[in-house]
């Protein structure tokens, strides 16, 4: 058995957790979490860690130059910089509204990139 210490990032509480993994890497127990999200986080973090990526995308013809974006769901951690590269190259045209899908599938993760801010045409 392999014991791992983790801090949950599910909410600002930041629960200190201890998870046990067997030889196969499978998580067999999670302790220290105060809610089910902690348990789920620990299992995922030790097997296929994921994160939501937030950044900005350039806007053409808008009242502002940049619009904030996020991946609609979390993406595999190792894909973060691939996502960033696509985000860096992307430019969209105003208007943009919260929730607009700017990329249907960012960096082959199957996750959409959505706007999290509004930019009026300007």
């Amino acid at each position, binding site marked *: 058995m392999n014991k791992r210490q983790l801090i949950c990032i599910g909410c600002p509480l930041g629960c200190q957790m201890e998870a046990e993994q067997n030889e196969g890497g499978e998580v067999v127990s999670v302790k220290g979490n105060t809610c089910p999200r902690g348990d789920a986080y620990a299992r995922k973090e030790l097997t296929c860690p994921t994160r939501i990526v937030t950044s*900005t*995308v*350039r806007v053409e013809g808008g009242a502002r130059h*940049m619009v904030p974006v996020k991946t609609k769901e979390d993406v595999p951690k190792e894909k973060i910089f691939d996502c960033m590269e696509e985000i*860096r*190259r992307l*430019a969209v045209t105003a208007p943009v509204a919260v929730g607009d899908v700017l990329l249907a599938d960012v960096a082959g993760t199957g996750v959409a990139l959505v706007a999290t801010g509004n930019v009026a045409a300007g």
Partner: protein
Amino acid sequence: MDDMLACRYMTLEPAKHRKVAIFRRKMSGFEVFYGLREHKVRGNPRVSCGLKAMDDMPACRYMTLEPAKQVKRGIGMYDVIIIGAGVSGSAIARELSRFRGRFCVLEKEEDVCCGTSKANSGIVHAGYDAMPGSLMAKLNVQGNRRMKALSGELDFPFRQCGSFVVCTEADAMPKLRELHERGVKNGVEGLRILPREEALAMEPNLSDDVVAVLFAPTAGIVCPFGLNIALAENACTNGVEFYFDTRVQEIRKQEEGFSIKTSKGDYETRYVVNAAGVYADMFHNMVSEEKICITPRKGEYFLLDKSAGGHVTRTIFSLPGKYGKGILVTPTTHGNLLVGPTATDISDKEGTDTTADGMAAIREKAGVSVKNLPLRSVITSFSGLRAHEDGHEFIIKEVGDAPGFIDCAGIESPGLTSAPAIGVMVADMLKGKLDLQENPGFVPRRTGILNPALLTAEGRNRLIADKPAYGNIICRCEMISEGEILDAVHRPLGAKSLDGVKRRTRAGMGRCQSGFCSPRTMEILHRELGIGMEELTKSGGGSKMITGGRKEAAL
């Protein structure tokens, strides 16, 4: 840029680039003459100017300028070249501009007021400190007497708030009396020794140990940037050329006058005025065998929030005593409280870093003459260098073995106070030597940057109706509007950097120290001067503000 011409002689051509015109259309409707700007657009040098709205060309308030044919920068013989656009150089330039002639100022930095003149106590000394008979004593008292009228003429902040020298030890009283007598000999008016009670009644936050004070009602405070910038602007308006980012590298005596090699080409001039602050020894020693030595004497300061500005209402010095030369505590013309300076001789002429020791020394000594100093309200600390010459005396004279080379060296405290008198003195010397004739077009008055806070509500509303930028606050700590920043950018010798804006308007000088306003000020500089965001600087040279752009670089 090097072959660009003196601004005054430019002719205007309409901008041809459509994209530029469209971009400009979006600019604020700030309709004053914008002055001329040298700047770069995507690395290419460009000179533009802004005009009042033109009926035939409404979209094109800005124009690209074509070089005119006549006078080229650096070509031909100047009558006088002044090295250094600090307060001495600018005062000399201003007084010289009363006469006809070809004068220019060479400055290694990107703006006026970038060396010793920028970081000091901002005190207009009464004149009791210098030894009777010295040039320092004479120019101090003369400068003090001129300051008030000059502040009216050139519209810079000055307040004759008076000063105290505080004696906290009974056995040091003879020293206080000696200072009094010296002041009387120097011609300082109104000097009085006040007993403890009277002093405390006037300044309740004096130390409990106060025995007596020397009260100098003629002492005052001045905005050091305000004074320096006003002098330079007025000189520029009256025809003196200013060249920035121009570092003097070599000065050679020639048959007639001098040739000056700079980082931006060569110049020729009949007379050189060496007003180079801590570098004055370097230039002097290039032409003379009688060497001088200027030691940068570092002084560190704390600037306190305006909430502490009323802690004292006069400049409070401590009588030099067992703690050495004391730390002064003074209100500033903008309502902050200034505490300092230390005095440390260093070797680096650019060594304006603050030190842990220096700051500890201020904290330790600050309480000697003033009690309950709210040092918790420090908003920034800074250090400046005084140009201390070994003889501790102003050296203002033609160099014996280099006729035509006039030193204005060793200008340390009370140099700021003396600047108006130094200007007159040097201009007089040059007038005699060059037989200069009066400049009939000399404009003695200069209007400073309009401070809307001084207007009535109605006045301010008329201003905003006319120029809406005055209704848009950019610096929320100091309540500085976009209108004031535009004024600072577009006036003669306008601001090109964040510090340039700060010194002219105080935007960014407040309690948040430009945290909120710097992105917005950058945007204004970018928009108004066409300087790429990545080229914008804090204070010229390599002080770039940002290192990467809007992701388009990756395209």
